[in-house]
């Protein structure tokens, strides 16, 4: 998916991404969007999450 930003906003995104320590403006935009979307999403079922951790040697 390609999303077009207004030129001025694009410039600001580049600046803020560089100042924030992101490796690219895309990473910055993704991070902001992911953070917002995570607030709206449901958590995966707990049982499934715990099952997937089986075998990780560091935990029992």
């Amino acid at each position, binding site marked *: 998916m390609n999303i077009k930003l207004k030129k001025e906003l694009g410039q600001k995104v580049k600046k803020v991404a*560089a100042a*924030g*320590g*992101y*490796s*690219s403006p895309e*990473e*910055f935009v993704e*991070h902001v969007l992911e953070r917002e979307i*995570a607030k709206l999403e*449901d*958590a*995966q079922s*707990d049982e499934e*999450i*715990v*099952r*997937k*951790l*089986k*075998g*990780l*040697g*560091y*935990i*029992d």
Partner: protein
Amino acid sequence: MKAGHFFKPGGSLRTAIAIAFLAAAWFHPHGGAAQLAYIGPGAGIAFLGSFLTLIAGFFLSLLSLFLWPFRMAWRAFRRRKSLRHAQVKKIIFLGLDGFDPQTTERLMAEGKLPNLARLAAEGSYSRLRTTFPSLSPVAWSTFATGVSPARHNIFDFLDRSLKSYQPRLSSARVGKPERVLRLGRRRIPFSRPILELRRKSRPFWKILGERGIGSTILRVPVTFPPEKFDGRLLSAMSTPDLKGTQGSFSQFTTRIEKATYENGSRYPLRRDGGGFAGEIEGPDDMFVEGGAPLRIPFRIERRGGACELRVQRWRCRLDPGQYTDWQRLSFRTALGVAVSGKARFLLTETDPEFSVYMSPINIDPERPALPISHPPYYAVYLANLLGSYATVGMAEDTWALNEGVIDEDAFLEQAWSIFEEREAMFRDALETTRRGVVACVFDTSDRLQHMFYRRTGTADRHAGTIEEMYRRMDALAGRTLAFADRHTAVFVLSDHGFCAFRRGVNINSWLRENGYLHLRNGDGESGSFFEGVDWGRTRAYALGLGGFYLNLQGREARGIVAAHEADQLKREIAGRLAALRDNNGAAPIRTVYQTASLYRGPYLDAAPDFIVGYNEGYRCSWEGAVGKVAAEVLSDNHKAWSGDHCVDPVLVPGVLFANRKIAAADPGIEDLAPTALRLFGIAPPAWMEGKPLL
């Protein structure tokens, strides 16, 4: 293949196999499907092999073939331009996970690591500063990206859901396909499963690839799912097994009558005539509502003194104490699609009871159900060239040894067998790379120290296991150096060191004792993953190995600590926790770090608020790591897993050897990525925090 001897295919054999594979992929419907359709183990199945997709794939392949000479010319042009300022033609990174500087320095002084000693004398050796916390997924992510955890987002093996406080694997997410057509009980996915690498920022090999410099990256942790770049990569830590877990062994035994999933999956073996019968439990059938596990029946026949395992169309001999080769297990789903995995079997007892161990069912590298390499055919190429191999992230089955399902000898045989598989891949990459980077991480050093640390210095027959491992890694370094000419930079490095793990500290229990965490049932114990925690009165909680969190308003779903209280509370908790004392007066904790004082970066708000710097001999307890409040804060560690590195990172730096002089006084693992770029004449980008060492 014996340890220490490389598989030596001729160039013509390699070419022939590559051509044969490409031809097979072109003409064979299953081979083509391997690239078009990924079947998600235990997490969802995407089937994209529609007729339209095949047609589109065919024409795209034709177009790709037509454009190939132009792409090659463009790539050669870019590479030549990039290499104009390069100091080297090739860089080799030999990663030895957990290779400890104190042990290394002692053994070098005793003359037991001649190759590394030579490398140190002719080039350089120093300790390598690691990350906070000193955990492999964190440190290797910093190696790859040249940035701190606050910029790559990996702070531990686990992080937590801010909604449910439940743990998640920090490095990767595998989810079910989002678009599913329901037909009665049948479920037909119309999209791929969700696969997400949660490590952020950009690895140095991607930047090199953008300049036309290719890399081969083998089993560097936190590379699943594989990212696209100009090069080849085989995924490592966090790659699931076919069941979608991080590696679940199975035991089939006459000792039980019903399956049990406590401390590993154990299944009954029925005595049947002169032999035994059982069922292998595979991934859930995601084409069916409710998805029951797919099963494969098997038989074991006894003939004289020998046993034969019969599964599907293959048979193999089972000899006590000897692993079988990798065997294919093909699980057929309700829609007829087969999901393929590979496992090895070991007969562990025959009389009076009969038991067989089965390794975790690894994703079959020849028919990967999930992408485990880039390009996708690289995993297949390696399997065709060198034979099948372990693909699950943490391939050495430490859990089975902890639970006594396999013994020390069986564990060692498995670990060294995996080492040999990896060395063969590494050798192939070294032989086929004229320019660019070859990086390979070996986990044997880490796993053996975890499992045999307690034995060192005892009269036990495994007392010398760790020293023997150091010698074998030294020999590996020697063989690697044979591939280096004056245009090649070689780095041998580890992500952290090691120390003993004798006592566990349950931070959750300490928080409860000190009034920061409350249970609904008062003074009792909680279940795992915070079962029974009263979030409405809990101000801090611990999950994972490195640190713990405040229950912050506006961040956690049921957070109660207001933002203006947080700093004061952090200081208070850090001060009180650092004063914790063991029964003998020893201090289990050296320093409690506030993460915000360690790092700056965009992902800092996902980090634990505290990183606990344990003293040598201590670590977070097994129960505390999984969010359980136990009765005691401090407890003995009785497991075979007796060495660890989840301590104050200052105590466990890694090692760094190079075949060039490194003048930096305090090299850190974040410095390797910018060093690789600088050696190829590329200025490190501004976001990288590491500094070039050369």
